[in-house]
């Protein structure tokens, strides 16, 4: 049975944001997004207000999923890096910790080579963060250790109120 939830706590969220900010600076990128493979944005850095980030996350995940399908059809495990070249802006897509997608949007202020180099280093840092998240998830077993789950005390009235006209 696949994992039912992806849970992101404040500490890891901040660490991921810091890692993305650092990557953006080092790669001279316009914007960087970390996206879950089901199409939800996890974290972002840079000129994010210029983009419809929800659509970006969904389409990126679809893109990666479709490309994964293509890879398997030709006998490859996956295509680990995707690059889309535009007139002015370009997109570099890579997989981090097997479960997240790193999307880098860059223009003439950077280069594919620089982005690839910086992404490789940053990915290792982010993989460590994800590993610690996974270990934290295993350690957190009781109400004394976990932050209050938003679902723990939800009542039927709460749910009905969400859908009332």
């Amino acid at each position, binding site marked *: 049975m696949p994992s039912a939830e992806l849970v992101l706590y404040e500490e890891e969220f901040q660490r991921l944001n810091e890692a993305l900010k650092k990557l953006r600076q080092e790669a001279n990128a316009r914007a960087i997004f970390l996206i879950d493979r*089901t*199409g939800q944005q996890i974290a972002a850095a840079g000129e994010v207000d210029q983009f419809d980030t929800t659509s970006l996350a969904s389409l990126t995940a679809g893109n990666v999923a*479709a490309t*994964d399908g293509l890879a398997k059809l030709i006998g490859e495990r996956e295509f680990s890096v995707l690059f889309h070249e535009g007139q002015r802006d370009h997109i570099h897509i890579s997989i981090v910790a097997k479960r997240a997608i790193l999307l880098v949007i860059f223009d003439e202020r950077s280069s594919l080579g620089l982005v690839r180099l910086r992404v490789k280093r940053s990915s290792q840092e982010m993989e460590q963060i994800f590993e610690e998240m996974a270990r934290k998830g295993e350690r957190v077993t009781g109400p004394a250790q976990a932050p209050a789950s*938003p*679902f723990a005390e939800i009542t039927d009235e709460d749910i009905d*109120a969400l859908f009332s006209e």
Partner: protein
Amino acid sequence: MTFINYATREINCKIVYYGPGLGGKTTNLQFIYNKTAPEAKGKMISLATEADRTLFFDFLPLDLGSIRGFTTRFHLYTVPGQVFYDASRKLILKGVDGVIFVADSQEERMEANIESIRNLEENLREHGFDLSTIPYALQFNKRDLPDVVAVEEMYRILNYKREPTFEAVATTGVGVFDTLKSVAKLILVELRKK
């Protein structure tokens, strides 16, 4: 797969609309998009052919409000219904939290409905899901057409596990929001159980 972000206080869930080709999946989403207030919806994306047949997916993000201080966001997807797009359907089902099956009530489409439910069951299984346990609702669409199968007959043939079942006319919106709300509630109740 539900995504809970404690830092931004958001809950994100994924609902997939499934069903045979031209059954009304995209029409459901279009109606929801047109009727939802601008502040509660994102941009609707439709990856379609020139003939407006869904090629890869439709996507619509919806904000349903707050629950216990967490913004509750549902990501609605449709799959392409045409038989030969099965590889794409498998991809779109990844990480699903709830499914809505849009059945075409026309008599000549009943075989397609049955085959599509079988396909749904199989594709869910490939992702490690089980149709008998996942939040699921059934919609009998196109009830306004003349040659439709009786609701009782459709229920007998297509209902899987006594899931909530709704009659609908997606072009005018009848039953559209009722179906969506039922699956959204089932997802939240399921999350509460966990």
